[in-house]
């Protein structure tokens, strides 16, 4: 099953022309940061040191919220945990190189552990983004309460002060914060543009499709939150050393929301926007808020509401969005490896019953599917066809009866696990990633086979020949670098089908793949399906209304009517049966 690619495809060079420009910009900034203390006064150095630490926090919020769609108010908690871990060690254990090392390690590990816990709480199958947001509110509140209750150990409301810090001096803290910011921003910039970065955006844009591509969305979210918790903790370590104080407010929800403001105003999903937003607002605030704090906060509040309403992309949205001119990746063919045509059932469904309360959707369904079979499911509206496909592909649906796929009972397995067993599902309404290009969508479909790299983009995509056929026949192979949002309905349907095929599933579930397609497109999809099943030994279950189409491509037809499987047999037999005629002309009744 695992088609590990032996000859690794050519990796795209990281630094394209536009990348080179940015690298130069990065070097320039680096020089500015290193030389800054020579011409900046102490005030500016001190304020900017903190602003730059804040900017890193804003980038973590951007990665979570802007790129992955997790609106979090709780990054402050991890920042606070890191800062307090540092201050507590240095206060109660003392200074010395060893203790600084210990503080550094703990300031990363503790927030990561906390973040992992928060991640576990926030992300589970069918958890909602709203729920994750609310949890992210609770975390800083509980943490700051704990700090308050810590008495003289944590310094309570007064915070901790007077502990030994790394004696670097203001100028070097400025340089350290600057270098850290540039490194982190650069790293974040590379990652969000890498293949792995596409996974984050996939989760933000269409978590369901991502899960049905086998991407373990919750796991990715938890890992991301954990890693960024560690980064936040590291920022806390820097802060505790540079600022020489920790206070409960840095772990609080107010600070967490401030980061959202920086990110929103600077421009979510742009890395540099939030960083500049944080520096700009914190630095301007230092200049302005001293004398008119309420007016300053009022201005920020109004600006924030206006931005959310009218400029969701923030100030970064004012810049013209550069059309991604990445060269189209090359497509490579995976060797066809016909599935062994075993006599054993690939899928077997026994006694399936699905009800919502008193409303029974499916009842008493028995079905076996063998490799190489293409089964069409027909039946009038409301017969339960789509529900049937959902039950086959999501083991967490509450059902009665058993569904086994490749010998494994799928009960309790979320879609990504069922996908791992060899199911590919194509939705009724084409489900693709709107903000991506055709090539990016295809590469995501291969994510479970070729682990997406964090550092760059693969320049080639390995696809099975059937997927390539679909692309070639529809002309999608000429549009690899084009954004999905510009594709026609038929093209999207074909793209989704190609994505599903690219996953090399053993059983493909298709929900009305031809709805709204032209005659030519239908024929094309029919050809592909025939080839997949008859030549390559895939199995497929197809929901279809167009009986002419069904007749052309199926070997077997299953008729669902009012939640029951009323017929299962060879095409000719079923099509010509009185039962089907009567169901379709409305004469059949229980």
């Amino acid at each position, binding site marked *: 099953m695992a088609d590990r690619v032996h000859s690794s495809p050519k990796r795209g060079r990281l630094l394209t022309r536009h990348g080179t420009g940015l690298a130069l910009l990065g070097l320039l900034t680096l020089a500015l940061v290193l030389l800054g203390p020579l011409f900046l006064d102490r005030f500016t150095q001190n304020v900017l040191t903190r602003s730059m630490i804040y900017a890193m926090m804003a980038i973590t919020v951007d990665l979570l919220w802007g790129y992955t769609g997790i609106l979090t108010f709780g990054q402050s908690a991890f920042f606070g945990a890191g800062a307090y871990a540092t201050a507590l060690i240095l206060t109660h254990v003392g200074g010395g190189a060893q203790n600084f090392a210990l503080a550094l390690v703990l300031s990363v590990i503790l927030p990561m552990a906390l973040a992992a816990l928060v991640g576990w709480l926030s992300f589970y199958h069918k958890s909602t983004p709203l729920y994750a947001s609310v949890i992210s509110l609770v975390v800083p509140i509980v943490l700051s309460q704990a700090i308050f209750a810590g008495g003289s150990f944590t310094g309570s409301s007064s915070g901790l002060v007077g502990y030994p810090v790394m004696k670097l001096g203001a100028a070097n803290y400025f340089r350290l914060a600057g270098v850290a910011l540039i490194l982190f921003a650069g790293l974040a910039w590379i990652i969000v543009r890498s293949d792995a970065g596409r996974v984050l955006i996939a989760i933000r844009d269409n978590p369901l499709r991502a899960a049905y591509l086998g991407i373990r969305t919750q796991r990715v979210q938890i890992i991301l939150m954990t890693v960024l918790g560690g980064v936040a903790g590291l920022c806390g370590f820097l802060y505790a050393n540079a600022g020489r104080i920790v206070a409960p407010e840095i772990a609080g929800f107010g600070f967490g929301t401030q980061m959202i403001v920086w990110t929103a105003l600077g421009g979510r999903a742009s890395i540099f926007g939030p960083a500049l937003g944080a520096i700009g607002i914190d630095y301007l605030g230092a200049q302005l808020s001293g004398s008119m704090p309420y007016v300053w906060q009022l201005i920020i509040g109004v600006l924030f509401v206006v931005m959310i309403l009218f400029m969701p992309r923030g100030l970064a949205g004012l810049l013209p969005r550069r059309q991604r001119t990445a060269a189209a990746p090359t497509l490579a063919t995976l060797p066809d490896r016909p599935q062994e045509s075993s006599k054993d059932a690939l899928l077997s469904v026994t006694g399936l019953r699905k009800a919502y*309360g*008193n*409303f029974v959707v499916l009842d008493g369904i028995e079905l076996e599917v063998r490799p190489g079979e293409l089964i069409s499911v027909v039946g*009038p*509206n*409301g017969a339960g066809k789509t529900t049937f496909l959902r039950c086959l592909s999501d083991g967490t649906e509450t059902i009665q009866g058993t569904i086994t796929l490749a010998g494994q009972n799928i009960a309790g397995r979320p879609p990504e696990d069922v996908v791992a067993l060899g199911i590919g599902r194509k939705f009724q*309404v*084409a489900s693709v990633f709107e903000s991506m290009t055709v090539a990016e969508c295809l590469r995501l479909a291969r994510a479970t086979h070729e682990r997406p790299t964090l550092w760059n983009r693969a320049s080639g995509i390995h696809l099975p020949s059937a997927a390539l056929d679909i692309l070639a026949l529809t002309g999608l192979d000429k549009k690899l670098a084009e954004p999905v949002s510009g594709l*026609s*309905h038929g093209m*999207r349907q074909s793209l989704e089908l190609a994505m599903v095929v690219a996953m090399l599933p053993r059983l493909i579930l298709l929900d*009305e793949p031809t*709805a*709204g397609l032209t005659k030519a497109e239908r024929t094309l999809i029919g050809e592909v399906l025939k080839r997949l099943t008859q030549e390559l030994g895939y199995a497929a279950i197809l929901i279809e*209304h*167009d*009986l*002419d189409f069904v*007749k052309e491509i199926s070997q077997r037809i299953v008729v669902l009517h*009012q939640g029951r499987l009323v017929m299962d047999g060879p095409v000719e037999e079923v*099509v010509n049966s009185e039962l*089907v*005629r009567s169901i*379709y*002309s*409305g*004469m059949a*009744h*229980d």
Partner: protein
Amino acid sequence: MTDDRLVIEALTSGYGETDILQGATLTLRRGEILALMGRNGMGKTTLLKTVMGLIPTRGGRVSLDGVPINGKPPAWLLAQGVGYAPQELPLFQDLSIRDNLRLALRGDRDLATALKIVERNFPFLLERLDQLAGTLSGGEQKMLILSRALMTEPDILLIDEISEGIQPSVVQRIETALKAEREQRGVSILVVEQNLGFALGVADRWAVMKLGQIVDEGACDAASRETVLKHLSI
């Protein structure tokens, strides 16, 4: 004044990127029952929804007694005497029959008067007003849906697959009710149907829809069953 009441011309609409209706043209005349048939996914329900203003029109026009009604909200159409019995999730399952009926009353109409109309066709509903709609059997639910549409005494009635999944005796009652409404009040009725027997039994004319367009229409007579079946069949 012509007898054309609801005129649909080259209507296009759909969801997302997809045009489900692709230039459908159809006319509902005064006092007639017109059966619109076609297989699943061909755009029949979308046609009704578009006319009712539940889906925005993308092209073509709809007019009521010569007045264009494109883009009018459902509330406006209901006020003009257009009644609608939807197919998908047509009832508030967790509300009582009474509340389900009340929700369809607009403005100054009171429930008592409306219930008299319900009583004419389906008196059993009046005895069970406090029962939750979700606890009714499939056929009873259909009768409730129809009662709700008839209750406001519409001049034009759009009905979506009312016969779906119910037993013949209930189909018969519905047929009787629709015919009675037409006889007594001269209502024009458009029924979207997959049940050939019911459709041809109740209607004066039929039309067949395929891939978002009306492909054939005719008067209901002895020959129409074969003609329509040919369009629908396999």
